[in-house]
């Protein structure tokens, strides 16, 4: 167990190193951070060179990488070129709003998907199952911006035209600290996220429950005269939940990164939008900071999920 964990951690470190090199090269070389000053009248070519030198952008790439990495390991992610603020501060400002949005969506999704998936599996091939399966298949094939724009069209634009109470689109100015406003602005983006992710999860739960229901021990439980209720809740669902632990565990770190497209469409001031706005400007310290935090979380949660799985499933032995 401990040697296994140690090996996984060493592998994770190497993976993280590759991630940082990859991200550094891609973001550092994708745009010239000085380009925004090229047309500035307040800055001569000599000033630009001086600034480039002061920011260390004139040094060889490996030196720049090692300097960035050295600071990043200490939690120092540098300053944004555009807003001049420390990247870590910008991220901690955006993180709560992203988590509020994503955690609400994730919990709602889990509840809905569990309900739909279990109904679907228990009443296999019934009308309800066919309906749920069809909708989850369509939802699974749908880009999220279709739902997002559709919700805006119906609940914001059309409802407003009809003179009904309507939902805000996020394009207005609002204060996230006001809980009423926060809740109102969350309805549409959370709905969009829930519809898309539920489709995916419920398909998975359905097949997982179906597989367990076909097992011999479930037949034994029925044969010894247990009620269908006891068979389902005490025997089947517990085991069907096992693979689901993995899926959810692996999804948790992605909550940190927010939902880039949803946040952009609804102008939600979260991590995804932070990344997208600063990626467009070529502001590499911010982009690199977000990438580093999210991918580190992904790498760590992969290990945590694997370990958790061995705890809940005694059949698995780590070698």
């Amino acid at each position, binding site marked *: 167990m401990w040697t296994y964990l140690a090996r996984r951690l060493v592998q994770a470190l190497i993976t993280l190193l590759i991630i940082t090199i*990859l991200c550094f090269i891609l973001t550092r070389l994708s745009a010239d951070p000085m380009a925004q000053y090229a047309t500035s009248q307040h800055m001569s070519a000599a000033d630009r060179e001086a600034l480039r030198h002061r920011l260390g952008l004139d040094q060889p790439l490996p030196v720049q990488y090692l300097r960035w990495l050295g600071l990043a390991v200490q939690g120092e992610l540098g300053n944004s070129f555009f807003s001049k603020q420390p990247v870590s501060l910008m991220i901690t400002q955006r993180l709560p709003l992203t988590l509020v949005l994503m955690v609400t969506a994730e919990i709602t999704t889990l509840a809905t998907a569990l309900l739909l998936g279990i109904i679907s599996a228990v009443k296999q091939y019934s009308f309800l199952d066919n309906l749920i399966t069809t909708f989850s298949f369509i939802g699974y094939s749908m880009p999220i911006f279709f739902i997002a724009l559709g919700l805006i069209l119906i609940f914001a634009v059309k409802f407003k035209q009809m003179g009904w109470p309507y939902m805000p689109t996020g394009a207005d100015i609002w204060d996230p600290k006001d809980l009423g406003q926060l809740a109102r602005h969350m309805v549409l983006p959370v709905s969009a996220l829930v519809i898309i992710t539920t489709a995916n999860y419920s398909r998975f739960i359905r097949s997982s429950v179906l597989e367990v229901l076909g097992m011999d021990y479930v037949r034994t439980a029925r044969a010894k005269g247990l009620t269908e209720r006891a068979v389902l809740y005490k025997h089947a669902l517990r085991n069907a939940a096992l693979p689901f632990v993995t899926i959810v565990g692996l999804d948790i770190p992605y909550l940190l990164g927010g939902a880039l497209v949803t946040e952009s469409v609804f102008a939600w001031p979260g991590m995804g939008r932070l990344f997208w706005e600063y990626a467009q400007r*070529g502001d590499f310290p911010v982009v690199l900071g977000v990438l580093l935090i999210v991918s580190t979380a992904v790498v760590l949660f992969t290990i945590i999920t694997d370990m958790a799985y061995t705890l809940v499933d005694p059949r698995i032995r780590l070698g």
Partner: protein
Amino acid sequence: MSSDTSNLSGISTLKAESIATALTPGQLIWRRFRKHRMALAGGIGIALLLLFIIIGSIIIPLKKANAVDLKAHLSPPSAEHWFGTDSTGRDSFSRIIYGGQISLIVGILAVVLAVSLGTVIGGVAAYYGSWVDALLMRFTEAMLSIPSLFLLIVLGKFLGKDVQTINIFGLSFSGSVGIVIVVIGLTSWMYLGRIVRANVLSLKEMDYISAAKSLGASNSRIFFSHLVPNTLGIIIVSATLGLAGAILSEAYVSFLGLGVQPPTASWGNMLTSAQSFIQRGAWWMWVFPSLFIIFTILSINLMGDGMRDAFDPHSSRHM
């Protein structure tokens, strides 16, 4: 192979025929695929879509799709413009046809790139083992740990620095089409790479491979007549499902404005402007490209699911 026996237990209708005549693996796959009604529906859906795009592009010239008519901008569907017009008065129906061409071409070429990369990387890792395997797998893991949309954006910015117009066969395309293909291809080979690696690793240990070796079969014979045919099914299935993913990725990056650049139409970039005009109630700009994306992805996913069951000799579900 065990495929015959597992079918016998599962499908009563096949029983008599299977005993009477031994079927080749190809015939068995086709039989299982044909029995899968949803998969067949998906196949028909794709055929209809291809017909629509091919006949459409013969009847309607590309010029019409790109012709700007400011007087007719934002007009709702009418006899003249079946799907309405966009913000510069371009005919949406013609753009759907040519956008479909671009979306499908991007999807197919990106999948070809991803499948080649995945097969080579997975195959090389499994074949050489030791540190080559370790390094390639850490690299694969690193790529998988970066959220895919973030990776698409970073790579898109990296490769999309200078975009030129390409002229092929007298048609001019925005060079962004080529870049989108490369970006999607480079970011979607990882799962297949892992599957190919695992498959080759387990095949290497199979008795019939040892048998072939002890009979004196050459490396190339083992590779081409044992390893390749036994991995091909997996590759074909994940290429099909990957096509759905690639078309969806194109839609996402183009929707964000990073992908295919206007005037060249793609289903994704037709929706970019829909985002701002939906507030004014221009529902047709949103609904038509979205429906085509969903129809395409749904058809491909249905077909891919059917193919997965058909290629899996142990599968007797859904029939």
